[in-house]
């Protein structure tokens, strides 16, 4: 009867693994538990199965074996438990024929949200990413960074409890990336989201996360979990502090170690 955990696990990965039909082992059995409100980053080189793991949590891929629970229920039953999840892809993945507001409204339309409610939610989400003046613009009129912010607004419009992000800023330039990282952190704090973030950037991982899950390739597996026990809010100034460097070095070492064991 005694439960020691102080909060509910939002995501539980129970020895889930993935082997494709052609025999390729993408992911060895993985165990991972993520608390509600936690910001967890999956970090590792390409081919380490971090995207595979994220897609399994999203329900886009079925684990070959093992289970994944969201709020203690199978992924498919998420809606029944009254929770919502959003997925942000590496590319903006917008509909080029539809304006920004229509793109952001898409998940609400698919759910059948009444238009009057949807309209307010869309404007609210666009304000969060600072794009309210661009509601009627077409995606091609926006820069790459702005398109990504539209994609994030679409992720937030459903007021999700769980936000899954697959290298969302990987294709952007350094400055835009830093700005969006900072924006994301303030949104996370404001909305009390649970976030799983995939990246191959050590600096991005340290800057954002409560906890970094380090993964290695061939076949994909978890090699280390590292807690970033630094207070929020974190600003650009955090990135030049000794603590930041210390965390980055720990992750750098374990990443190198993982690569060595391969060769």
């Amino acid at each position, binding site marked *: 009867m005694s439960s020691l955990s102080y909060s509910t696990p939002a995501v539980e990965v129970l020895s889930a693994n993935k082997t494709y039909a052609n025999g390729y082992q993408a992911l060895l059995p993985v165990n991972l538990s993520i608390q509600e409100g936690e910001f967890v980053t999956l970090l590792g080189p390409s081919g380490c199965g971090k995207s595979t793991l994220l897609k399994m949590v*999203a*329900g*886009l891929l079925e684990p070959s074996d093992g289970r994944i629970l969201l709020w203690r229920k199978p992924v498919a039953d998420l*809606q029944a438990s009254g929770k919502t*999840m959003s*997925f942000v*892809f*590496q*590319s903006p*993945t*917008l*509909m*080029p*024929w*539809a304006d920004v507001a229509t793109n952001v409204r*898409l*998940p609400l*339309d*698919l*759910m059948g949200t009444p238009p009057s409610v949807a309209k307010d939610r869309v404007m609210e989400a666009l304000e969060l990413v600072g794009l309210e003046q661009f509601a009627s613009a*077409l*995606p*091609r009129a926006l820069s790459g960074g702005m398109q990504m912010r539209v994609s994030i607004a679409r992720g937030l419009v459903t007021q999700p409890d769980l936000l899954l992000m697959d290298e969302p800023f990987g294709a952007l330039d350094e400055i835009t990336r830093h700005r969006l990282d900072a924006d994301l952190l303030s949104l996370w704090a404001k909305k009390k989201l649970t976030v799983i973030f995939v990246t191959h950037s050590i600096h991005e991982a340290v800057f954002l996360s409560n906890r970094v899950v380090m993964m290695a390739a061939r076949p994909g597996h978890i090699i280390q979990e590292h807690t970033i026990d630094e207070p929020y809010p974190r600003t650009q100034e955090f990135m030049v502090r000794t603590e930041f460097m210390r965390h980055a070095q720990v992750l750098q070492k374990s990443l190198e170690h993982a690569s060595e064991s391969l060769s």
Partner: protein
Amino acid sequence: MNPTPSLHASRLALQKIGIPVCLGFLILGAWQAFVVVMELPPYLVPSPILMMQTLVTDWHPLLLALWVTVKITLLSFALAIVVGVSISFVFVQSALLERALFPYAVLLQVTPIVSIAPLIIIWVKDTNLSMVLCASLVALFPIISNTTLGLKSVEPNLYSYFLLNRASRWQILMRLRIPSALPYFMGGLRISSGLALIGAVVAEFVAGTGGQGSGLAYQILQAGFQLKIPRMFAALLLISLTGVMLFAVMAWLSRWALGDWHESEVQAE
């Protein structure tokens, strides 16, 4: 308003229209001179001026014939669109049906319409209907192949996004597949509109040799029998102009539908 870009644009437009028109007049002038100098008889090569005169004097039968041809072309084009798009939807919903039926669509495409037309004209009592059927068969394939390709050319991540949000098949079709297919469909329309006209003319020829028909192709046949070569040329001119008009309308439609967002139609900035 900055005058420089609009000036530049109008100069471009002038070049785009002016140069081909000038060339056209040059060719017509040369043709006229050639016919006059070589003293060619009108039953061999009529001069452009004679052709225009025939167009004016014979306007009544020619215009009636034009109307018949245009009607058959538009009806068959519409039929090809409805049938072609329906077949594409079926193909996209069921891979099995596509595998089963696609070879027959190809078979239909590669069999020359001239060889099927007599059969259709014999089987179908109503001449107009039989000609519409022939022309539709010619125009059908580009619509099927382009629309099917377009309905399948959905950005994979966007498709995943729809699946993640538990979109129904219907929602995916209406909100994702159809808009994604639009550029391909428009490409199919451009090809098919021209083919519908070719199909209509071929069908009229076949029907015309049997003594039935009243379209422009029939006029050409009759003019040939009676050695009214200027009239033949006039009918030919009308067919070409119809084709140009169709193409222009399709180009306009494509720009209207895709102009804002698709790479093929967005004007370079």
